């Protein structure tokens, strides 16, 4: 009798479609149904670290902002720990490190408030520079896209980051680095994601 491999196959991905808000952010679809929607509070009330805002757009191959995109964020706390049993260490009470963000339907602008994550441990040795993990779904995106956002004020850490260094085309690394700015005394990082074309953002197969 031949040896059989009995692994199952992963379920195929399908687009989130234009009405993703009904399921994941029903308030934005135009109705209230749940006691609480999930993902609007990334850090909880007790998070330590530098409070920051991140803003941007997701831009299609024709240069137009995508107005029906949904992004999820997964990040470590300021100590570099993820809120997960294998996350590296403890996090503050109420810190989940996960966020869910949609765009303004008119402008395609999105934004969220969080804390700047710390340095996380590397895969084998060393460390990874502070970064946010993004997962992007929308109508027209058949499989959710994974990318990372790094910080332009972490020059030294970025230079040593194993993932940035894996991007063979050095000029493309810049697509993963958000630009620091300030507004009303608050730190705001700008991170535009380009799905296609000039300066196409680096996406990962994880």
């Amino acid at each position, binding site marked *: 009798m031949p040896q059989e491999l*009995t*692994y*199952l*196959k*992963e*379920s*195929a*991905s*399908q*687009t*989130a*479609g*234009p*009405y*993703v808000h*009904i*399921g*994941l952010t*029903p308030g934005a*679809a*135009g*109705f209230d*149904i*749940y*006691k609480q929607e*999930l993902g609007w509070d990334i850090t909880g009330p007790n998070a330590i670290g530098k409070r920051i805002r991140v803003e941007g757009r997701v831009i*299609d*191959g*024709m240069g137009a902002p995508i107005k*029906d995109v949904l992004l999820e964020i*997964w990040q*470590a706390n300021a100590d570099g720990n993820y809120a*997960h*049993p*294998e*996350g590296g260490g403890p996090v503050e009470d109420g810190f989940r490190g996960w966020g869910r963000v949609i765009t303004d*339907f008119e402008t395609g602008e999105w934004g969220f408030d969080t804390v700047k994550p710390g340095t*996380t*441990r*590397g*895969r*084998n*040795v060393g460390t*990874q520079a502070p970064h946010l*993990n993004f*997962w992007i779904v*929308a109508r*027209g*995106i*058949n*499989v*959710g*896209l994974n990318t990372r956002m790094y910080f332009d004020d972490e020059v030294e850490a970025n230079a040593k980051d194993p993932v940035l260094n894996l991007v063979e085309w050095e000029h493309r690394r810049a697509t993963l680095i958000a630009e620091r700015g300030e507004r009303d005394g608050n730190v705001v990082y700008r991170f535009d994601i380009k*799905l*296609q074309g000039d300066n196409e953002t*680096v*996406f*990962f*197969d*994880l």
Partner: protein
Amino acid sequence: MTTPGEFYQRDRSVHPPAYTPNYKTSVARSPRYSLISLQNSVSEITGPVFGHNDIDAGDNDLLTNYANSGESPIGERIILHGRVLDENAKPVPNTLVEVWQANAGGRYRHKKDTYLAPIDPNFGGCGRTLTDENGYYFFRTVKPGAYPWRNMVNNWRPAHIHVSVFGSGFVQRLITQCYFDGDPFIPICPIVQTIPDPDAIDQLTAKLDLNATIPLDTVAYKFDIVLRGRRSTLFENRLEGN
């Protein structure tokens, strides 16, 4: 000691490619460069954890979670149930499953949907639940209707329920759609047909489950969801310091 390791490489042959010209919206929304393959770090093997404080017990009952008191949505009453498993056929417990769908007439409760079929005053169209310790989940809802969409002039979506699942690591994150066995729109839908593998489409097609059907009440459909699996040992691929 055996510690779970990294996730298996994603088998891209079961997934649609990014660029699928018959689904026109994908043309300008698909990256042109190759994805850069990363071995898992702590950022990938971890993911958000949800608990029963995040949701309400009735969130998985779409027959009642938006209905006026004593009323019920129009349509075929169905149970959608199954398990969330990984590629090793191990149940994925306590994971968040979220669904959304059109009503029985094919109309979504969404400010951007203008299809002429009516909104159902008793139907919101979304639900969520956590799998139990065996990876089992269920929803009660109405069977959604087919509806037309702007792609080619006469394209209709098969009846479908959108499904979002987490798993334990962020790389397991998945959004897909559940179709219904025997729907004649499945073979001609440009979105379904972005999936090149017929078996992978069949895996997204819920089967009539007469044994789980409640006589004189509600028809059941079974829909298992498979997320990526993990290595059980680290060996040479170990994540040191993990």
